[in-house]
């Protein structure tokens, strides 16, 4: 306001406009300081507010990604543990098969070993029907019930779906949360596809049947267990890689979330030092204006004319 005037009401009007403007400015700075937010409403900085909304959206969705990654990670750990147990069983069956292949064993001893293997096979089927963190079949893909059922002939049948479900890890990255039974239990012997449970059943049945075929069945069983172990260790490698992938995406997500937090602070946070300095400046000007106003306002000719 540069008008020079002599009218009393103009003086008061001008002072009021100046003082209330300064006061509004000081209050705005104060509220920005006390809330820690530079923006009280979107229109304070439309571009910044829009960016903040996008960052907050990414943050919210990233929280869900973290939960999903943890779920995938825990499922894969369950898979890893189960695979270890499978490997233990296969190794033990192979040991038994080596024993049974020994020509010095009696038929009864072989039948006993066959009985042990048959019992272990039931354990393996139980293990293949293990549950994941949500209580569903761990190796059944996306099936609602169990992964394997036992048919009338006593053979284990895979009833799950062909693939396991994928979980999103954010930014378009996915991870398959589990393996299906056939993916690590199935292998080919001499070009014929079989699975671990069938191979164990053949071995147990052969040993229990006794006779001249029992020793050959034990030798066939040894070969089959080697192949089965191969399939399981391959699957362990796959699971290990997937867990490493989750770690990579988790680290990336953490980095991104730090970047987002930094940008949020940049865009929406109050720069304390600068704001305090500006507030101080405004207050100084306001005080000076008030002081000069009260001096000028008390300067009346009526005081002097007696």
């Amino acid at each position, binding site marked *: 306001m540069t008008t020079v005037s*002599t009218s009393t009401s*103009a003086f008061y*009007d001008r002072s009021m406009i100046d003082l209330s403007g300064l006061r509004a400015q000081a209050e705005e700075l104060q509220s920005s300081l006390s809330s820690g937010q530079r923006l009280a409403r979107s229109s304070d900085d439309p571009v910044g507010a829009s960016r903040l*909304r996008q960052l907050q959206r990414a943050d919210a969705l990233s929280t869900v990604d973290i939960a999903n990654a943890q779920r*995938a990670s825990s499922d894969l750990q369950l898979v890893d543990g189960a695979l270890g147990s499978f490997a233990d069983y296969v190794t033990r069956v192979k040991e038994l098969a080596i024993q049974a292949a020994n020509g010095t064993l009696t038929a009864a001893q072989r039948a006993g070993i066959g009985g042990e293997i048959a019992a272990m096979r039931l354990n393996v089927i139980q293990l293949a029907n293990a549950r994941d963190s949500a209580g569903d079949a761990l190796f059944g893909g*996306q099936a609602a019930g169990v992964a394997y059922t036992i048919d009338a002939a006593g053979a284990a049948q895979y009833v799950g779906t062909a693939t396991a*479900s994928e979980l999103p890890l954010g930014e378009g990255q996915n991870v398959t949360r589990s393996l299906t039974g056939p993916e690590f239990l199935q292998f080919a012997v001499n070009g014929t596809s079989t699975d671990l449970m069938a191979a164990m059943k053949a071995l147990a049945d052969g040993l229990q049947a006794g006779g001249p075929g029992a020793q050959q069945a034990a030798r066939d069983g040894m070969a089959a267990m080697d192949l089965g172990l191969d399939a399981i260790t391959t699957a362990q490698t796959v699971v290990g890689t997937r867990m490493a992938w989750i770690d990579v995406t988790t680290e990336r997500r953490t980095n991104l979330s730090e970047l987002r937090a930094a940008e949020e602070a940049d865009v929406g946070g109050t720069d304390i030092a600068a704001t305090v300095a500006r507030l101080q400046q405004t207050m100084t000007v306001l005080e000076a204006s008030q002081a000069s106003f009260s001096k000028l306002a008390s300067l009346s000719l009526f005081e002097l004319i007696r």
Partner: protein
Amino acid sequence: MSSDLLSIGASGTRAARIALDVTAQNIANAATEGYVRRSTRLEEVSSAGGFNTIGDVSLSGVRLDRVVRNADLFRQSEVRRTGADSGRAAAELNGLQNAEAAIEQSGLFDAMVRFEGALQQLVGDPTSNALRANVIEEARTMAGTFNIASAALGSVGTGLRFEAADGVSQVNTLAQELARVNLRLARAADSTSDQTSLLDQRDSLMQQMSGYVDVSATINADATVEVRLGGAAGQLLVSGGSAQPLGMTTASDGTISFDVGGVGVAPAGGALAGKAQALVKLVDINVTLEQIAGAMMAAVNTAQAGGVSLGGTAGQPLFAGSSAATIALALTDPAGIATAPAGSGPGSRNAGNLDALRAALAAADPAGAMDALLFDVSSTVAGRQVTANALNTIADTARVNLAAQAGVDLDQEAVNLVRYQQAFQASGRVMQVAQDTFNTLLGIK
């Protein structure tokens, strides 16, 4: 020689008394809104010599010529013009700020993001009842916030129309008042204090009126005023003693239009124009909000129809309703969310249709559209804020300029008080001298 010292002195005291009265009136009204400082113009009373008295001294003192009202017509019209601009900008900004608050504070954007997040979380375990219930609750929240946003925008519109209707009746009252002032002005004698106060009233009424609509005034020779709405070629609002009624019509979409005596007018300034502009923008915002709600509902409901629920039945619509105001949650059973693709059995963990739902939602991108809407509204508000601040400063300056010229300066009045007191005392002294002179003549023995 026809002078009379006594009557000259008496006329001097009379003139000084009047000047003192005017000064006192100025001081008393120093803070009165719309009061224009008066000053007295005095005139010498003397006569030229007549027949046979050429060169005669004929002095008769002083008389009040007129009370001058120190109003600057240009500054007054500037105050009206800038006041109308500033009033328009402030009203529009206020309406838009309310609209911004309505959609921002409804939390619609956050609710959309949370719904999106709940769906993403459901992928982790599509058969989990807890996660399904979470989706249902977030959907309910989102539907609720759509209702809130829509209702809030509606009440912003209602408020604007209510204020506009009030503004129209104010303008009509002011116009009738102005017509009455016109009539009285035509009757009042020139230079009387009656006329000056009527002129104050006239200018104050016009200034008040310019806060609502942009008016252009033509001042006639008899000091009456002719007021047109919307520029110099606009519709006649007040002419002489008659005022045309200003009317307001609300269209079906909620926008408003004005007419004077039945003839449509479009005010370019004043609060009424600002409110009309804000209502136009509000219609835009409402349309966009409806589009967002419609796209979101269509995406979710179509995807639902393409899958089967946890119970193995065909998916039912998640949302019911036809607009942002009426959108409601139709599906309350968490098991009803169709996560599995068509043909899946009960309890399927296949998240194929959930993926399709999320893809459809991502394609419709209601959160992105909401962000764009918020950005549109807030950047409009930010732009208008700058305009409004600038126009407000201009209007303030014009007002202070007028006050500087037309307002009362107490220091000057103090000086006048002293000056006219001295003049009064001096005139009294003149009468004293006249008496002394007369006594001198009487005392000749």
